[in-house]
């Protein structure tokens, strides 16, 4: 198999440790390589497989990410309560 294919050597565990940006960058590289074409079927298939894996990783990271706001205090982090929103609710 072609050694240059991004992700071709990564196993599942590595993929699931990637950050969103890393996953997306890999995905973009793969899409570009596939679009350029001229690869043997076997390489195309493994590229495709990796691409799907990175795409899933991106989606998973997006799904699981939560918006969170903390305020820095002398003791460390504390969840921040937006005073303006509290006022609006009242």
């Amino acid at each position, binding site marked *: 198999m072609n050694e240059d294919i991004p992700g071709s050597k990564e196993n599942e565990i590595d993929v699931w440790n990637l950050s969103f940006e890393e996953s997306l960058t890999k995905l973009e590289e793969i899409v570009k390589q*596939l679009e350029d*074409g001229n*690869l043997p079927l076997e390489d*195309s298939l493994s590229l495709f497989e990796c*691409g799907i894996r990175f795409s899933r990783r991106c989606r998973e990271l*997006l799904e699981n990410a939560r918006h969170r*706001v*903390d*305020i820095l205090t002398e003791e460390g982090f504390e969840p*921040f309560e937006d005073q303006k929103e509290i006022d609006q609710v009242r």
Partner: protein
Amino acid sequence: MSSLLPPVRNKQILAVSDLTFSIKRKFQQDSDMQDVWVKGEISNLTNHRSGHSYFTLKDAKSQIQCVMFKWYAKRLKFKPSPGMKVIVFGSVEIYEARSQYQIQVVTIRPDGIGELYKAFEQLKIKLEAEGLFSEVHKKPLPKYPSVIAVASSPTGAVIHDIINITRRRYPVHIILAPTQVQGAEARESIVRSIQLLNRMNVDVIILARGGGSIEDLWPFNEEEVARAIYYSDTPVVSAIGHETDYTIADFTADIRAPTPSAAAELTVPDVSDIRQQLSQYDAILNHTIKEKISDTSQRIAQYESTVSIKRLYEIVNIKQQRMKEMNRYLQRLAHHKIDITNTRFASAYAYLNAVSPLHTLKRGYSITLKGKTIVSSITQIKEGDEIEIMVKDGMIESTVNAKNDREVV
């Protein structure tokens, strides 16, 4: 005349210094003289070797002596110059050696927007020359940050806007570093926040403040703040005041956002754009692989039609037929060659027959031989020679009796 004066008692006679001290105490006890802001124009400015500054503060009607000791003077953010309109803060004190009153100045602020702009321009030119605003020092923002820090006031619209916009766009962890963005403490507070956030694992720092007057925004024109931004390893997005406000912090920041809301938009991508992009990538992946597979299948089908068993027999048959044809042709060619050779031999034989001396013998001629030599002249023999005469059906052995050299031919 002297009788009008009260009687002198020793106890009541004061030393000059005593009187001066009393005056001094009077000034100190008078709240009108202590911690006052006085507005005027600077003149007769002397920057003494000692580091202390002496000047006169005046307006159209009056003037007053001022002194600024070096430990205060060195804290000023701008250079006071003669003719500058300023507001000084300090207390009226008595200089005992001369019993002169003067303002002991603690700080000076440029008075009026014009003077503030002058200070702003001075610092801007200085820092620009140092390269603090140079594009080469601008750090790119991470495309997909996971932690963003906001150095701003924990109350008010700014943090509220930033939280709202980021929440709508992209799931991210926001760390709010409570920071004073106005007043005397602001400068140190901003610098402290930037330095603190640099020791934490954040992807980007948003330094933000809502709109206000030039005086309100002044901490963001402080040199220390600019330097803290410059030395920040974490990219800094500045969002100070309204769209039309430009502060030194804005020039130094890696990116200037026109408003805090815009800063939030610049810092995080829109998750719906990303989802759309991901869907597009998925579609490309699927499409290209399908195409690849169908291309390959087509090529395989093509190869199959070329190399199938039936086709193989066909090829063998064609070759065999061709071989038979070649064989027949070769045979024909060989026969032809033999025929030609036979004909040539027959004609050569006939010709040879025609010119043969044996043929002449058949017609009645003879050949005379002496030894193995044909006798064709009378000079070849002499009387008594043994000769042989060849005729068509045998040899005659004879002896030469006589010879006659009469020519025959």
